[in-house]
């Protein structure tokens, strides 16, 4: 079993971590390139930069706005995010692993703080799962991944906590460590393909929305022409019904 753990901590970790970084780079770049393209296509370059910056920063550091509506849910979610961002990269044991592997190190968070934060993150994760399950509104919106993510994210936290804190038999330790390492790797591989990609995409959202409201001149005419209705825009006197499909002269539509 030790060999499996070593494989998970070594080659598999390197693969999973690279996939996560490359995958996130990809989606981040796609949105960035999309923003640039859309911006270029519209002659209207007037964007509310300060407003977009304020909105973006306001959600990145949601100290003020989060509590005004649904405070309990907001607090839970905030705590969960804080734990996810702070513990994995700054846990002393993880920092040490990095130092051994690549020779780079950064100041870790104190062990007691990490322990508390881990417990709170686990509680918050379970809280979010239950909240989603029990709230009618959230249930109406939820897909499978929305239920699974909080649970999946809690697994490496819980197993890691037990490994470093509980007095457990060596055999159990091995099993838990295996779970810890492999669930962590799985999460990293999945992140770019799931909603967790918002960790790099959310800061771009205001810009995406701002640019998306910048329309392309002539697009309406071109859409009508593509659909074969160049001479019969949607407001013409005689309805398209009378003309029938035979009146359309457009070519086949290209679907990507």
């Amino acid at each position, binding site marked *: 079993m030790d060999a499996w753990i070593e494989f998970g901590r070594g080659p598999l970790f390197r693969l999973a971590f690279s996939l996560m970084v490359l995958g996130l780079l990809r989606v981040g770049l796609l949105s960035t390139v999309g923003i640039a393209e859309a911006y270029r296509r519209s002659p209207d370059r007037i964007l509310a930069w300060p407003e977009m910056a304020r909105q973006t920063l306001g959600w990145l550091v949601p100290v003020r706005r989060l509590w005004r509506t649904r405070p309990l849910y907001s607090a839970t979610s905030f705590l969960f995010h804080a734990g996810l961002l702070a513990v994995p990269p700054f846990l002393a044991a993880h920092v040490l692993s990095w130092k051994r592997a690549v020779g780079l190190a950064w100041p870790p968070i104190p062990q007691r703080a990490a322990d508390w934060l881990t417990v709170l993150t686990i509680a918050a994760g379970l809280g979010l799962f239950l909240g989603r399950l029990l709230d009618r509104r959230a249930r109406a919106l939820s897909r499978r991944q929305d239920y699974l993510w909080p649970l999946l994210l809690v697994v490496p936290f819980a197993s890691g906590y037990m490994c470093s804190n509980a007095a457990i038999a060596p055999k159990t330790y091995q099993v838990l460590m295996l779970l810890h390492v492999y669930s962590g790797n799985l999460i990293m591989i999945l992140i770019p393909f799931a909603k967790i990609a918002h960790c790099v995409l959310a800061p771009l959202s205001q810009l995406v929305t701002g640019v998306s409201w910048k329309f392309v001149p002539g697009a309406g005419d*071109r859409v009508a022409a593509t659909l074969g209705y160049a001479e019969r825009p949607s407001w013409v006197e005689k309805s398209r019904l009378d003309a029938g499909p035979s009146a359309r002269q457009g070519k086949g539509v*290209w679907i990507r």
Partner: protein
Amino acid sequence: MQPLAPEERNRAFTSTKKPEVIQRQRLGVRYHAEDFAVAERPRRFIEAFAAILKHTNYRLALDHYVRVSAKCSRCTVHCQVYAATKDERDIPCYRSELLLWVYRRHFTLAGILRARVLGEPGLSDERVQEMADAFYNCTACRRCYLQCPMGIDHGLLTHLGRYILSEIGIAPRALVVSTREQLTGASGNTSAIPVPALLDGLEFLSEEMQEEKGIEIPFPMDQEGAEYLFLPAVSDFIMEADTLMGNAAVFRATGDSWTIGTKYYDGINYGLFYSDHVLEHVLQKVQAEAQRLKVRKILIGECGHASRAAKYFYPTYCGGRDALPVVNFIEYTHRVWKEGRLKLAPEVITGRVTYHDPCNIARPGWIVEQPRELLKAFCGDYVEMTPNRRENICCGGGGGTVSIDEILSFRTLVGGRQKADQIRATGAKYCVAPCANCKKQLRELAEEHQIDCQIVGLHDLLYKAIVFQ
């Protein structure tokens, strides 16, 4: 807020369409749609969607939103429609997902492959019907946007959803018929007001003002080289005489040059509500008139959507950075008052006054404090509604729904339910709503909920306070 009683729910959601119309259109939505071909709707929806994606910027937002959407349900607290119905289908994120689903399923590689492997069915007629219903339950007020940690603009998706639907003929008849008159009709405006009627009406208003104020207050017509081309919501010319008198009086007091063009005098642009194609063609009419009269600025009257359509899309379609500046009348009045060129007598209005922020001008933070400063200058008892300013609650008639008479009960019982409570709580005698759509909706709302409050425009009251030197 009182929960929706079963009887009210029934009244709000019952279709007033005749059975034969539903049969013919094969569409059970509560508003009348245009009579378009009804065959193969799902296929045509996807074709229209593809064509729009090909020629516009929407793919960026869809791609991004599909990836970030976390389904956190925070938007539920900010939607006045959901607050009234408590129906999950009215949650902004739920509605947006209807369109995002189509995008994911038919326009992303992952979605197409997934469907192949799992044998998922594609877009169906039922889903098209659901979207047609959902996108016109939304008032496109964009309040939920402020609550979305992921920055998803559900208003943008409502706009896109309606645009695609309109290309396959699913658009409220009320909007299409008005647009048809505006773009191809003889009158060239949404209310079909011919020029002689316009001139008659304005002459009558001038006489009225002469009697009241004792001075001549003209409406300059076709003045070449004027500074401002004035475009109110055209319905103001027949419905909101007081607002127009206030507008003219402000110019009389400042002496700035302005004009109304007889070739085109309609600020309304329903394109903002349902079609980019319409949006562009209407703004081109504005540009043609501005060029004909060689004006230097476009001045939009008290109308939220007309102001937003012109302010944010005139540069897009009519010259980018070189486009003529667009000014809202409240902005103008506020500026000249600040400069000391307009004198207002204090405390002319003694009854309690409150202010309703029209979404289209308040949400972007564009016109928020200006009307408040003006009102406080001449009203003795000014109170705020809560919430207000950028976080205002929609009147319930936004997104063009106010023009759809078939859904009047829906607007007053559901869409405007929170607003009615808000207005009642202020105890105001006057509710100032500087927007043609908001005014119509709020009046219907006050009637339905028996609120003793007069709905007026800003310049209606301001007219009484102007001091002529």
